[in-house]
């Protein structure tokens, strides 16, 4: 029985090698469920993601080209992009650096409370963003426990662009940690040992051996944190000053336009944000696959 299986497999492999021009056809023939899983995924994606998105685009294209351009490029929108993209980028960078650090510490070192901290890292995923916003505002306002310390030093967090970045750092915190952590865990220690035997300093080993190995994961984590931060609304309305042209994020501008029954203007901005996220995620998905292929 076993032998039969092995033979059959060898045959399959042989067939596959012959038809190596169309590798995906080979897989489809061997494993079942392509049709079913495609049907479920396709249906779910259509109903939950594509159909609503189409509605959004249709609404946007009720505007003429010139109107659309004006809606997405007026001074206020530009200022909002600047804040949204700037704060999201800043928060994602902070998370990339500190997320890597946290992942490193959690994987490589043993210290009391490690398990607890490991569990708590996911909290921003689970905590409602409105609660996070309320709490961060209460903490960083000038009469809050942290604001009271920072304000005399000239650092104003609540109701400024800095506050926006702080809240975005919070919501994006788990992404880098959770993408880098498993890769670090599975990193073959013999590589580092080899580098050390060859006389490389610890820093050099990290730079030349460890970092390249975790870079794809770090990039994914960074992008997810960035994309997540771009769309964040619930926590920001509380901690931001919401001043047009100064501390107004794009999602708030979208809501503001909705209040004026300007659906087309609101969806136009939404489409800009969406397209950006889509391109970003797509590029990273492709990049990451390339890097993984290269390493393998």
């Amino acid at each position, binding site marked *: 029985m076993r032998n*039969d*299986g092995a033979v059959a497999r060898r045959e*399959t492999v042989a067939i596959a090698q012959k038809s190596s021009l169309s590798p*995906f056809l080979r897989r*489809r023939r*061997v*494993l*079942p*469920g*392509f049709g*079913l*899983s*495609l049907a*479920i*995924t396709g249906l*779910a*994606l259509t109903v*939950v*993601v594509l159909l609503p998105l189409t*509605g959004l685009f249709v609404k946007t294209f009720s505007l003429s080209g010139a109107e659309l351009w004006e809606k997405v490029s007026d001074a206020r929108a530009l200022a909002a992009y600047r804040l949204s993209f700037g704060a999201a980028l800043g928060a994602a960078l902070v998370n990339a650096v500190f997320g890597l*650090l*946290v992942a*490193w510490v959690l994987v490589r*070192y043993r210290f009391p409370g490690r*398990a607890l*901290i*490991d*569990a*708590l890292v*996911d*909290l921003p995923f*689970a*905590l*409602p*963003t409105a*609660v*996070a916003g*309320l*709490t961060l505002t209460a903490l960083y306002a000038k009469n809050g426990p942290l604001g009271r310390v920072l304000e005399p030093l000239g650092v104003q967090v609540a109701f400024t662009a800095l506050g926006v970045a702080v809240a975005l750092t919070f919501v994006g*915190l788990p992404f880098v940690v959770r993408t880098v952590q498993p890769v670090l865990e599975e990193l073959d*220690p013999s590589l580092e*040992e080899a580098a*050390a035997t060859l006389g490389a300093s*610890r820093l050099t080993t990290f730079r030349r051996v460890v970092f390249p190995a975790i870079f794809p994961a770090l990039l994914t984590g960074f992008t*997810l944190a960035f994309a*997540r931060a771009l*769309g964040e*609304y619930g926590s920001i309305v509380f901690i931001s000053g919401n001043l047009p042209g100064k501390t107004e994020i*794009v999602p708030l501008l*979208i809501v503001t336009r909705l209040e004026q029954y300007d*659906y087309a203007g*609101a969806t136009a901005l939404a489409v800009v*944000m*969406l397209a950006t*996220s889509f391109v*970003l*995620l*797509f590029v990273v*998905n*492709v990049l990451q696959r390339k890097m993984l292929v290269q390493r393998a």
Partner: protein
Amino acid sequence: MRERAATREPVWVRRALIAAALAFLALFLFVPVIAVFASAFAEGPLKWLSAVTDRESLSAITLTLLTALIAVPLNLVFGVAAAWLIAKFRFPGRSVLLTLVDLPFSISPVIAGLMFVMLLGKNGPFGGLLEAHHLQIIFAPPGIVIATVFVTFPFVAREVLPLMQSQGNDQEEAALTLGASGWQTFFKVTLPRVKWALLYGVVLCNARAMGEFGAVSVVSGHIRGLTNTLPLHVEILYNEYQFTGAFAVASLLTFLALVTLGVKKVVEWRAAAT
């Protein structure tokens, strides 16, 4: 032991790194969580209890749990199907598909809610049809469920996918050539190998489902005692200047999140043990 020492940092570096990581987490994570509980119990445990057992809080708890109970299984089925499709097969448009699965992560929840209002609301393309059949979706619990499904869409797929990918197809192929049916292969071979990742995805999906604010806020209608979820109830109490009550309900949500994370941790330990 020698080699190990060569791949380790000096003690002071280790301590400094741990301290830096802890300081970062303390500032961005621990202090806010402690602040939630401190504010929640600012007026004593009795006040807390009365805030979370108030009639409207209870109805919000019910709706939140019901929403999670429907949204999570739906996303479980979808997530497994999507992971199977993307991990096991190569086909044109695979990267696009993967990106579409990711997209709900990065769509502003407000936009997500808006999309469903425009699609299923009175003035949307399906509005007339729904109204003719007396189906109220937007501004009613079904709308909240749909918005939640959207927001938590990628979690299960995203957790299961990498594992399925790294495990390859060998075992499934072997099972099939041994005469197992497709479903047998899936339930006996694939599922046991990804069950912990699956559970992990479910736990995260559930956590997010209970905590979603932005999207749900747009489709809810905010009818007290009927279409308020826990996160929305926090906002309502806050807007009524009942800060302690707001934080009491918020602490309940935080507590639910912590329980979820505890479950996740247990899942991880069990996974590591097997």
